[in-house]
């Protein structure tokens, strides 16, 4: 499904990584490891199509992603370092707007349920501005419950989350894998993705 061939990435004068080849199939995960500045975020953004690799290309279902943007974006859920919420809108409105721009029609009830599952039932009508760091992050992760997407690319999803929320998200990831989804993630807290889900660990090292 997701494949990458000969990816390399040069930033400034530094080669972050070179000649990375990947092949990820349904139900498999890829866990990126590496110190701060190793190039994990850079790789995830390349896989998501948000930035271009210096060399190599990313394939989705055997075709380069640049040639099938709409299809690829349909199948992709990317959650990055950013909070990614409009501070003036409530969580409900934020999610509503995102889904509608993705071409989905999601009922208010569905959104309410997703937020409830992320423990935000009481916060759904507050503007995102006043929420705590962790609540914002939870709100954003609620997208994963609303949008059917085969491939999840998550950049440090556990950041700012408390222990309960981390456990919730882990369950979510496992369920996604179990249902045949693909998962690419990075985190400094090693995730527990269940023993039976097959996957890979890719270790990036900091360029010296």
């Amino acid at each position, binding site marked *: 499904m997701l494949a990458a061939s000969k990816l390399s990435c040069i930033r400034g004068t530094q080669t972050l990584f070179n000649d990375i080849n990947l092949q990820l199939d349904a139900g498999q995960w890829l866990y990126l490891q590496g110190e701060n500045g190793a190039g994990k975020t850079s790789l995830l953004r390349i896989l998501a199509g*948000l930035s*271009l690799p210096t060399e190599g290309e990313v394939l989705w279902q055997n075709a380069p992603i640049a040639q099938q943007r709409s299809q690829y974006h349909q199948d992709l859920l*990317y959650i990055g370092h950013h909070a990614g*919420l*409009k501070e*003036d809108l409530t969580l409900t409105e934020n999610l509503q707007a995102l889904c509608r*721009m993705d071409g989905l*029609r999601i009922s208010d009830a569905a959104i309410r349920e997703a937020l409830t599952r992320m423990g935000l039932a009481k916060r759904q009508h507050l503007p995102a501005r006043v929420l705590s760091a962790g609540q914002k992050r939870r709100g954003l992760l609620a997208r994963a419950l609303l949008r059917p997407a085969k491939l999840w690319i998550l950049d440090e999803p556990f950041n700012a989350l408390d222990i309960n929320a981390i456990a919730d998200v882990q369950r979510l990831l496992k369920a996604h894998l179990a249902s045949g989804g693909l998962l690419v993630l990075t985190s400094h807290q090693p995730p527990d993705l269940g023993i039976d889900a097959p996957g890979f660990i890719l270790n990036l090292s900091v360029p010296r």
Partner: protein
Amino acid sequence: MPVLAAYFAALQRDLLLVMRRKTEVLTALFFFVIVTTLLPLGIGPEPDLLRKIAPGAMWIAALLATLLGLQRLFAADHADGTLEQIVLSPEPLCVLVAGKITAHWLVCGLPLVLLAPVIGLQFDLPADAIGILMLSLLIGTPLLSLLGAIGAALTLGARGSALLVSLLVMPLYIPTLIFGAGAVESYIAGLGASGHFSLLGALLILAAAFAPWATTAALRISLE
């Protein structure tokens, strides 16, 4: 039509955002009012002089008011990371961009058109000239929004300084300004404004066809 739905989704989102800060609806308008108020304070209150420069000055004020709103058009979404999500939407980016541009015009352009008569009265313009002025603004302000969006998208990566946007966009605005202000002035001079209007209209059609597309390209470049 799914494409239309995406267009309206983007439009509605931006309008909702504006509504949340109720002042923003009014401020483009008041900026327009204030710039036109400064004019007599700067150059003196002689009615004849003012009447003469009013159409041009109002056009320039409209242009500046639009310009100020522009730099928020994408920069805000860029800063909080929502632009990434918009770019990753399966719907055509061009359509979403068009929705955002429309919202910008509804908030920053349309109110100016509606307020123009009041300002026109302050400068003691004749009623029919005011009509022409409104019409020229009605065709011209969407043009300003469309062209400005390209500049706003281009300067994103450069951590969109308001001034840089202005710098890029101003040259594009010049034809609009010349035909827009020119329409009113040549009407007042008794020469008729239809020539100016057809040129403005042609520009608008051209811009409506190409600007969203160019803006999309600029966005992709800015985001790398």
